[in-house]
């Protein structure tokens, strides 16, 4: 596959996990959308924050 951007691949991964997680955990469409958006945002924000921590404090 030609996509080699780490952040784009991470976003695609987070998107699918968020969709499945949101639909799995909640019952109404509104709740599912909210849970999915929170999961997506949490995964992206967590990865970016962790990336910056590792940039400052490399292993």
């Amino acid at each position, binding site marked *: 596959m030609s996509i080699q951007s780490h952040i784009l691949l991470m976003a695609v991964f987070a998107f*699918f*996990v968020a969709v*499945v997680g949101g639909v*799995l955990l909640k019952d109404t469409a509104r709740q599912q959308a909210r849970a999915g958006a929170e999961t997506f945002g949490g995964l992206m924000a967590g990865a970016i924050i962790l990336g910056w921590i590792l940039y400052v404090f490399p292993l």
Partner: protein
Amino acid sequence: MAARSTAKRSTPAAPAKPLWLVYLLGWLVPGGGHLWLGRTTKGFVFLVALPAMFVIGLALEGRLFPFAPSEPLVALAAVADVASGLPYLIAHSLGYGAGRAVALTYDYGNAFLITAGLLNALVIVDAHDIALGRK
């Protein structure tokens, strides 16, 4: 009062559909258990999202891990891969999923493949709860 306490003590009704079939359908076809139980919207979302994750994982040159009891983490990854059901069986029988460890996207591919299987396992547990009338 007496009626309420009797109802409380009574055992839950047996599921209308056999549980083993819910598990089998849910495993083979991601979302199949939900579709069979009448949760069509959820079922279609799983039916699209989970095989898509699996295919993306293969396209990213991820590996379908072999069962290697000597390497526990590899064996666990293999279990997660198998949990994808029919997509795994088709890919495995066609020889896909050899993986290319030097590929830039190899680890991403593995993450997609393993996560697709693990999410399908969660979907099967959800179908189990629906079949028992808990959801």
